[in-house]
């Protein structure tokens, strides 16, 4: 792997639950993120998938420093950004930008498109001197496929897909190295999603960006990612290259998740084995002991309740070279193919 531009180690975010008004005392914590580690190499796309409440968006917020972690480190080019402040933090933030999910609420309705995309230059004037800004913003509009003449329009004059392009242009304004995209296409119509996904693809090679791409849609994540991490209840349960995760998953949760995705192919209906999980995701305020997935897992045994499985290459695959050789946090990891190959 190329050199890691971002190293995340044992990242934890607990939101305290308090009781009382005057004398607040902590009675517990919502463990939104509970020990997440991964690397992001320069120029690669890391996809993070998981269901709602698994902590994927909290991870995104910590990566761009919108939330301070409870514990753990986020190293950008070797330096821990979680302890930075002031000028050093400002410099790092320029290089890690975010694209949000909802293009309706993440753009200020009272600002023109030019002001929205140009606002980052107010904070980082070194990137674009004042006289140069208008031209830069027009260039950005052009880059994301919008007419540069739209610079004086307001967000409500654009469709959802166009707004998401504006959000992307704002993310690119400071020429960052890393873009954290939290569900960037899930609010868009099917026929418009492909346009935005292709745009993100093109921008990555044009500006050699690294992406952290967070989504719940496993098909889109596969399309765009080089590597994929699967999260469940605040932890990464399996991580690997895209074919390792999609074609050779070893964690039961990944297998269930993949088998539940409906395929746009009616002939797959018959010969496809589906693992239907029972029950719901437990509350992160009170996660099960040991392996947090055990309450919904068909393989769960005594050991799963007592020992937290570590995210590492499982012992049975440690000596093999094959695609099952990737980190998976399960005591009973085994390879199981759940996605039919090339339309079955």
């Amino acid at each position, binding site marked *: 792997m190329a050199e890691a531009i971002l190293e995340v180690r044992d990242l934890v975010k607990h939101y305290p639950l308090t009781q009382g008004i005057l004398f607040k005392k902590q009675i517990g914590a919502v463990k939104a993120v509970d020990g997440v580690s991964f690397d992001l190499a320069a120029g690669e796309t890391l996809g993070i998938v998981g269901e709602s409440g698994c902590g994927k968006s909290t991870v995104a917020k910590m990566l761009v420093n919108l939330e301070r972690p409870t514990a753990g480190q986020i190293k950008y080019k070797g330096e821990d950004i979680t302890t930075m402040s002031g000028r050093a933090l400002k410099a790092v933030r320029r290089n890690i930008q975010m694209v949000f999910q909802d293009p309706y609420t993440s753009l200020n309705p009272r600002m023109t498109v030019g002001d929205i995309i140009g606002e980052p230059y107010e904070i980082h004037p070194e990137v674009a001197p004042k006289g140069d800004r208008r031209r830069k913003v027009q260039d950005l509009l052009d880059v994301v496929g919008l007419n540069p003449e739209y610079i004086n329009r307001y967000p409500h004059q654009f469709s959802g897909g166009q707004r998401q392009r504006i959000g992307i242009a704002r993310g690119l304004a400071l020429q960052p190295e890393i873009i954290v995209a939290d569900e960037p296409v899930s609010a868009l119509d099917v026929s418009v999603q492909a346009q935005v996904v292709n745009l993100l693809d093109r921008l990555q090679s044009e500006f050699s960006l690294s992406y952290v791409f967070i989504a*719940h849609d496993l*098909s889109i994540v596969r399309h765009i990612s080089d590597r994929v991490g699967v999260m469940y209840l605040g932890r990464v349960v399996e991580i690997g290259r895209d074919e390792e995760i999609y074609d050779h998953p070893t964690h039961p949760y990944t297998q*269930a*998740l993949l088998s539940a995705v409906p395929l746009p192919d009616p002939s797959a*209906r018959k010969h496809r084995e589906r693992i239907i999980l029972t029950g719901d995701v437990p509350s992160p305020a009170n996660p099960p002991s040991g392996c947090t997935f055990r309450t919904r897992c068909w393989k769960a045994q005594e050991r799963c309740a007592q020992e937290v499985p570590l995210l590492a290459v499982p012992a049975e695959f440690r000596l093999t070279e094959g695609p099952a050789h990737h980190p998976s946090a399960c005591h009973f990891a085994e390879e199981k193919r759940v*996605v039919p190959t090339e339309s079955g």
Partner: protein
Amino acid sequence: MLLEVRDLQVEFKTRDGVAKAVNGVNYSVDAGETLAVLGESGSGKSVTAQAVMGILDMPPGRIAGGEILFQGRDLLKLKEDERRKVRGSEMAMIFQDALSSLNPVLSVGDQLSEMFTVHRGMSRKEGRAKAVELMDRVRIPAAKERVGQYPHQFSGGMRQRIMIAMALALEPSLIIADEPTTALDVTVQAQVMDLLAELQRELNMGLILITHDLGVVADVADKIAVMYAGRIVEQAPVHDIYKAPAHPYTKGLLESIPRLDQKGRELYAIKGLPPNLMHIPPGCAFNPRCPMARDVCRSEVPPLFDVAPDRQSACFFWKETLDG
């Protein structure tokens, strides 16, 4: 035929003019059959369903023409109190967002038993017992203990089960499900879809499934109607459409979705945006976005051509589309 919609037209009066949401839709569902209505936002798929249910906001909405035949009767000719009897007991609807469809200040038991006390004249006690029975049926664990709980005490998947229970309460012959699993997580989505399909089989109901998700359609539908700008552009048995679409819009949609079982070449992207319903382009509404558009597409509205028995396409060039 259980339900037949004929040449339905719905429009909305807005400040900026009249929006033509549905422009001559024809479809039909038989008992035990699943029809998927596929379309993007603004395609008219939900408005058609609301017209069938009789829950359109009128005004600003107005049914400008057409017939809705349910078991042979034209629903549009019924008086409101007769319509009301049909709604709920003979046809029922499941909505996307269970949290805002349920009343937050009534327990789920009260909301379920209301179906029986209002429509069937049962006592409260009998209604309560029926509610527990229904919750069991949609597999809500510990139904007896949870019947007195409020919607916020249930998870998203459980709430959608309650919506299903409510729709099934009076054993209707037709269910309309408008994006029933869109708000749910994948693993829960699979549970809910499974449950719905099983109950449909058991009760031999007709099901109209409204969705934008090509995966969900492929999984459960028998036939599929693709809508664009208030019209059906293609209608076919589900296997045929996925194998070889006969309309450029359907084809574009199928090619533009990333696949779980394939690694990414560049995605095909349909250019442009869905049309504004106030200014639907003349001719074929899809022509500004269509790679095959010719002069005739810009001047004439294509009728539904018969491609095969049970199969229609509203494209002048359906043959070329079908061949590749």
